């Protein structure tokens, strides 16, 4: 069945090609529909109940979606500079989608002195004199509501806050806002020492542009690295071209599917072309290596025979590896973070598409254009190249110190797992960018001179209307803010308490310190001096709810979440018992989602390992097989998490995916190794030899593919995003660890087991009746008989070939499956045919039981196929397949017993 699938493209070339072209064209037409999603929404779990709470609070107190224009100049407070600032503030209001701009020229203040209180603009137009400018500065700096929010304490920096219309649903609106602001800033850059924008439009634009830049850079770079690696190790241009063809088609299919299905591209899925090229190439590398091996066995039609050989030997491993790789990517669907889910959909489809294309196209291309002989250098490389040297090095450990090797590996794993306890999570969007990026540096500069550009809200709700006109509750707001100040983690906070304290100071005049009004009436009367628009960010219309706006510049979720937890404890204490508290904010939700990354990681990894264990156990009809298959998957993961803990690399949306993806890929090498080892075991009783041979044969494709994968993942280090670069570095390291696990550890464990593949049992082609009627298989089920056949060796003999030679020592017993053989005794008086054996007959059972000389030749009278049961091998297999081997031994003793009874009966008759 699998071979049939594998050769589908060969048998139906025209129709297969037609279908492939049709799908590719359909997919290509969907690429134009591709959407890009760089919104913070995709970083928040869709089912997070806190999202609804945030939306309610943001709806009431206003969104935190604002852009800050940073303006710095040592001589800011001069008429010339202020004229430029006024022009800038006016210009910003003309940028598309800008709703309002708050800054020096429209901020209002309340100023009290000598029995007068004036509520007025900080500055009414551009001052004409230096003195007027300095007066404006003093007025601005005297207002605590604006300090850090609009002006640095030294007055050298000011901010213009740009509020936008709701542009979420408008395509390219962020880019238009960003570019509009940027064009305006360009005109003013000469006016000030420094001026720049920081806010969601810039982040969104930089994410989008970096995403496309990644797509354009990483794909071709991965292709170059891949070609280099394959040429280096396989020495075959064809081996380099085929993966490029299949992966290019897979890229088109995937992007087309994303376009048609409306799954948006994000910063993670931007690396998919590179991943397809890199991961897809590993399958091609394995099957091309099998094609080269098949060339040696080709007879009439060299290419077709080699492809058939390839189909026989690679069909199942290919399907299994495609499946496990796809499963690895699909496991990310368990994450509840939209960005990772979208990536999981895209990457899983990509891996399946690449597998289908490879299955249909590669055999077809090889039959048409494949090499007629393996590159000499390929064999040379296989015998003397780097893979061979690695294998030799590892074999020393495997043969001489197997237990020590396992013990050292186990100790290493324990050490790294211990290091993994230092693992921490982060999901902050700004941490996606490298620290030296201008956006990050600008963000830091804002935080240094003013307050951080990130916001969150502390929303409190009282149990009655006008609760926050009660001085006691206003005092609680101030208490919370005092704690925030003591905590030292956040840059600034602002609430209605600050507004009231400020107005109270200005009205009171005599108060040196900011103090709060002491009566409800005074609070209410002061509030008349504020426009609703000035307060709606801090208090609800009915004064039942109040809001403290906190600004910060913490870029890792772990630290932020820890501070928030501490804050929650204190606020609960202050607010109890009659105020309800919610701490929320888009930035906070995104950072809180980091904690779900860890849970999602554990769930996905557990499920994937469980699935692989079950699939492999079924495939090798043994739980041991399942467990062995997991070893080379688990070791690299343990090392990877250890390195993350050791180097303080956080678990983020990029690195959170490495483990499951790496498991899916690393298991491929193991599948190839186990499948080859299984196949070899059918031909030899020397299991250690079979292990060596399997490792030698698979080492080149395994090392080549793992190195190509490591290099390919390494390419991601050139990404514009830290999360993608970290993903690449860790995935590359994990691929290198998987070489160690697959070639050093798996062989040691593999040599200690004997596996029979379910596919072999199902695919075995033997005469059922022969087995049913043979006394050797008496008392066995069909499944057991098939498994017993696979435990034995199948030997084929040509006509006249000797199956057993008289006078030789042999411990093997045979069951003829097909053909006939004569039992011939050679004596002084010539040869005498004692009997003719046919299908179902057993011979050589004496030698099996006891080391004695063969008493006659058994010669094939035509082509003969026979099962060979070797004593030593059966003894070894007794521990692997105790039920079957015990039944076989019982049947052999029955056969021997009957022979003895026959002989005794015959002698008695003679006597």
């Amino acid at each position, binding site marked *: 069945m699998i071979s049939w699938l594998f050769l589908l493209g060969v048998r139906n070339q025209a129709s297969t090609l037609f279908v492939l072209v049709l799908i590719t064209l359909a997919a290509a037409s969907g690429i134009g529909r591709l959407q890009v999603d760089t919104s913070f929404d995709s970083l928040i779990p869709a089912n997070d109940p806190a999202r609804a709470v945030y939306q309610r609070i943001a709806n009431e107190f206003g969104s935190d979606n604002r852009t800050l224009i940073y303006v710095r100049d040592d001589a800011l407070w001069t008429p010339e500079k202020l004229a430029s600032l006024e022009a800038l503030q006016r210009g910003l209001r003309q940028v598309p989608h800008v709703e309002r701009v708050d800054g020096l020229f429209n901020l209002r203040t309340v100023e009290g002195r000598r029995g*007068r209180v004036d509520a007025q603009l900080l500055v009414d137009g551009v001052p004409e004199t230096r003195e007027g400018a300095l007066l404006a500065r003093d007025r601005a700096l005297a207002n605590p509501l604006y300090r850090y929010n609009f002006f640095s304490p030294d007055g050298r920096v000011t901010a213009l806050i740009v509020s936008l219309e709701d542009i979420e649903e408008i395509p390219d609106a962020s880019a238009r806002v960003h570019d509009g602001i940027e064009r305006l800033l360009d005109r003013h850059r000469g006016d000030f020492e420094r001026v720049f924008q920081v806010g969601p439009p810039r982040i969104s634009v930089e994410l989008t542009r970096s995403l496309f830049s990644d797509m354009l850079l990483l794909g071709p770079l991965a292709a170059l690295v891949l070609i280099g690696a394959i040429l280096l190790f396989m020495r075959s241009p064809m081996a380099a071209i085929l993966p490029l063809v299949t992966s290019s088609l897979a890229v088109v299919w995937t992007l087309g599917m994303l376009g048609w299905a409306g799954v948006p591209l994000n910063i993670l899925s931007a690396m998919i072309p590179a991943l397809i090229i890199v991961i897809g190439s590993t399958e091609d590398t394995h099957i091309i290596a099998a094609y080269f091996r098949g060339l040696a066995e080709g007879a009439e039609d060299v290419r077709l025979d080699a492809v058939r050989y390839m189909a026989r030997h690679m069909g199942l491993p290919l399907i299994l590896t495609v499946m496990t790789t796809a499963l690895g990517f699909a496991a990310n669907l368990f994450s509840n973070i939209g960005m990772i889910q979208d990536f999981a959909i895209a990457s899983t489809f990509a891996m399946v598409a690449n597998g289908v294309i490879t299955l249909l196209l590669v055999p077809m291309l090889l039959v048409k254009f494949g090499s007629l002989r393996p590159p000499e250098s390929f064999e040379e490389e296989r015998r003397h190249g780097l893979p061979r040297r690695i294998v030799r090095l590892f074999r020393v450990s495997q043969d001489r110190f197997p237990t020590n090797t396992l013990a050292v590996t186990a100790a290493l794993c324990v050490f790294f797992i211990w290091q993994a306890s230092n693992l921490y999570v982060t999901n902050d969007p700004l941490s996606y960018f490298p620290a030296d990026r201008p956006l990050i540096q600008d963000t830091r500069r804002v935080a240094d001179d003013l307050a951080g550009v990130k916001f969150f809200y502390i929303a409190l709700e009282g149990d009655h209307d006008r609760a926050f006109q009660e001085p006691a509750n206003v005092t609680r707001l101030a208490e919370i803010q005092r704690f925030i100040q003591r905590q030292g983690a956040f840059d600034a906070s602002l609430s209605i308490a600050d507004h009231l304290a400020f107005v109270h100071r200005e009205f009171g005049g005599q108060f040196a310190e900011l103090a709060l009004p002491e009566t409800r*009436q005074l609070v209410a009367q002061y509030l008349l001096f504020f*426009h609703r628009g000035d307060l709606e960010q801090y208090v609800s219309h009915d004064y039942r709810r109040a809001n403290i706006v906190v600004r910060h510049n913490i870029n890792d979720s772990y630290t932020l979440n820890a501070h928030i937890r501490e804050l929650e404890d204190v606020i609960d204490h202050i607010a109890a018992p009659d105020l309800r508290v919610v701490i929320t904010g888009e930035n906070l939700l995104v950072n809180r989602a980091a904690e779900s990354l860890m849970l999602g990681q554990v769930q996905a990894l557990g499920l994937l390992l469980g699935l692989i264990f079950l699939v492999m156990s079924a495939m090798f009809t043994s739980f041991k097989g399942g467990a062995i298959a997991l070893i080379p998957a688990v070791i690299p993961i343990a090392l990877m998490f250890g390195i993350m803990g050791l180097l303080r690399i956080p678990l983020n949306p990029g690195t959170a995916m490495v483990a499951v993806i790496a498991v899916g890929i690393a298991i491929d090498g193991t599948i190839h190794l186990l499948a080859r080892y299984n196949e070899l075991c059918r031909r030899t009783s020397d299991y250690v030899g079979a292990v060596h041979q399997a490792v030698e044969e698979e080492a080149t494709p395994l090392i080549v593919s793992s190195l190509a994968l490591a290099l390919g993942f390494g390419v991601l280090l050139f990404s514009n995003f830290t999360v993608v670069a970290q993903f690449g570095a860790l995935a590359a390291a994990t691929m290198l660890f998987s070489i160690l696990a697959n070639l050093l550890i798996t062989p040691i464990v593999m040599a200690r087991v004997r596996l029979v593949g379910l596919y072999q049992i199902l695919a075995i082609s033997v005469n059922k009746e022969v087995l049913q009627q043979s006394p050797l298989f008496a008392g066995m089920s069909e499944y057991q008989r098939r498994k017993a056949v696979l435990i034995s060796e199948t030997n084929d003999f040509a006509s006249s070939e000797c199956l057993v030679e008289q006078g030789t020592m042999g411990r093997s017993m045979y069951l003829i499956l097909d053909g006939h053989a004569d039992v011939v005794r050679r004596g002084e008086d010539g040869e005498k045919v004692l009997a003719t054996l046919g299908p179902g007959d057993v011979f050589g059972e004496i030698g099996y039981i006891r080391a004695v000389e063969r008493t006659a030749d058994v010669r094939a009278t035509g082509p003969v196929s026979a099962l060979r049961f070797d004593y030593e091998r059966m003894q070894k297999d007794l521990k692997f397949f105790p039920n079957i081997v015990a039944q076989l031994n019982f049947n052999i003793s029955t056969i021997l017993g009957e022979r003895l009874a026959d002989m005794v009966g015959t002698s008695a008759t003679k006597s």
Partner: protein
Amino acid sequence: MTVLRLLKHSGSWLLLWAAAHAAASTATDHGLEHILDEASGAEIMRAVQERHQLYPHVYEEQVMVLQDRLGHRDTRRLRRFTRVEEDGSVRFLLLFDAPEDVMGVALLAVRNASGETRQSFYLPALGPDFIESSERSSQGSFLGSDFTVENLTGEVLADHLYVRRRDERIVGQPYYRIDVYRAGVEPATSSPLRAHFILQDSLFIARTDHFDDLGRVERRQTHHDLVPVGAGVWRPNLVRMDNLRDGHKSYLRIERRIFSADLVPPERFTAQWILANQPPLARVVAAVEDES
């Protein structure tokens, strides 16, 4: 006679209260539009003023409703006293009666004959002192509403330049459009402060668009529920201000209006009277109690 004196001296007081919504039911003067066909902006504004000249002594009981962008409403009750003196000076007093916590808050504004304005606040919770406030404060928002003090006290014709623009037809009604500039500026190179939309048949200012410095409409003031208060003189019982930038709305409903010098004697506009008569009248207290 009083009115004539008023016009002679102040010549410029145009209380926007006087600008009324010209509903179909309003009084009309069918030949008027032809007379003003060739009139300038200033001439039309003068005609508006002459047509809807104010009574010098007005007492009003008002309800101010503030509505935020989410539709939440906040209601205040106030009393307003206006008195125009023979020398053209104007006195204006606003007393808060509800909600309870702001009861007794007073805003007193006096504009003298030369156009200079003085205003002061009284906050009962702060103590028995009036707090002076500058004229610039009058350009800011008025006690949390979208009205400015200037919107409520009126526009001085002499301080402004009026430019007539192309007449407009809104919902089938013909309007004069007059752009208002600060006096002394060059209209060709400046943005107008606001634009009045004046119904041609009744010369009521039905709508005023207030512009920001970029010439965009920032707030829109409209007048509704017009009532006749004299021969050809109309007053709106509802003034609405839409803040188009923030989505806020402010409504001012006049529940009772009395033109009487007795209700607005000069001593009512003094700190002594205000301090002596706060908390307010028993009727107001009862109303507050009813509410609570």
